[in-house]
């Protein structure tokens, strides 16, 4: 049934057209009088100091990695959640415990990260 995805493509293409038109509108209607001061980076009225292409704190990358781990956990939970009712009717309580074991294993990882100070921001 690919026909049910036709509306999605229509919506996505209209959204792209809308976004591009909106963003480029003031290029057409607005004035274009750039000068050096106007194009300089905003830094509370002072002359900009240094560069922004610098190193960031490792903590942000750590958050990104944790996100990937736990978001993939979510992805594994969804198929189980959708099928839980019908599978529970057939196979009984083992469906629940198999997921519980999976979650407990991942939560041990969560506790490890917690103890290592992965959730400390100060």
């Amino acid at each position, binding site marked *: 049934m690919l*026909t*049910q*995805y*036709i*509306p*999605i493509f*229509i*919506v*996505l293409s*209209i*959204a*792209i057209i*809308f*976004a591009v038109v*909106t*963003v*480029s*509108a*003031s*290029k057409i*209607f*607005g*004035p*274009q009088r750039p000068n050096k001061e*106007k*194009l*300089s*980076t*905003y*830094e*509370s009225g002072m002359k*900009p100091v240094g560069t*922004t292409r610098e190193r*960031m704190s490792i903590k*942000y990358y750590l*958050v*990104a990695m*944790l*996100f990937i781990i*736990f*978001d993939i956990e*979510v992805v594994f*939970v*969804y198929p189980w*959640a*959708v*099928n*839980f*009712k*019908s599978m*529970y009717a057939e196979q009984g309580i083992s469906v*629940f415990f198999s*997921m*519980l074991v999976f979650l407990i294993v991942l939560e041990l990882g*969560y506790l490890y990260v*917690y103890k290592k100070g992965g*959730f*400390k*921001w*100060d």
Partner: protein
Amino acid sequence: MSILEIILFTLGKVLVLLTLILLSVSYLVYFERRISAWIQNRLGPNRVGWQGVLQPFADIFKLLLKEDIVPDKANKKIHTLAPIIALFVAFSTYAVIPFGPTVTLFGYSVPLVVADINIGILYVLALSSIGVYAMTLAGWSSGSKYSLLGGIRSSAQMISYEVSMGFSVGGVLLLSQSLRPTEIVLAQSGWMWNAFIQPIGFITFLVASFAETNRLPFDLPEAEPELVGGFHTEYSSMKFAGFFLAEYANMIIASALIVTLYLGGWQLPLIDTFGLPSGIVITLQILGFVLKMGMLLFFFIWIRWTLPRFRYDQLMSLGWKVMFPLSLINLIWVAVLIMVFNI
């Protein structure tokens, strides 16, 4: 229905909905300004038209006629791409949200949702993840320190709350047995609203959607006293308007999503018992959906002008140490409910 008819009906629905969303975004800004003025004992915008009702249009024309400034330190292509991504995400998520039951129009049965797809919830989650790119790229490409800090903060914040958001949705899926939003709504008929069955999941999803839309108390990415404008410091004219529109459109989408997932969608309990004609019932149901959304939007605005802002470490601690375990408990709670009560 043939493919041509599908395209025609979709175009009709998209045009109507897009107009409505644009209008409600403009008026949401107006209402936010009026309500904040009311909360802070001020007047708010009341000059343009009767009680200031034409203020949104004045604002849009002002922004349209402003100069589009791209700073010379900026990466020009990505600087332009970022607001496009923000707008694209904000104006395509509404496609899967059902705002009414299936109606019969000119002999066709038309579901009141733009795209009734079986992976609707995944579509929403996927697009909201793309939204992170808009802020990160905007912050990185501007070449300004304020923007960079705002962008990095917003990406860390949004991905932290996305995890608990995903787990909260898992509880809904347990009951609906489907990722299709229309079936999620149908699974909540009567008083079986998910907000009552799984209150923990409702609260975690609500808090996570506050964080995802960057509203106070989670508006760290654009905290004015420390970061000027955050990731959109270096944006002007319609590019700035793009981020602004996207923020408010995201609020509308988020409240529509909360209504769909937790507050019974367009369903009104006991509506069938009065023996009203079907046309009136459907109209009431659509109005009920809009009313529920309006109340949530008022809640968003109310919270913004009442609570102070979190500190950054408090925000991340809340996301990982409170919301994440709570949403897991909610998932197990719903599974136990199903096994014990067979609902």
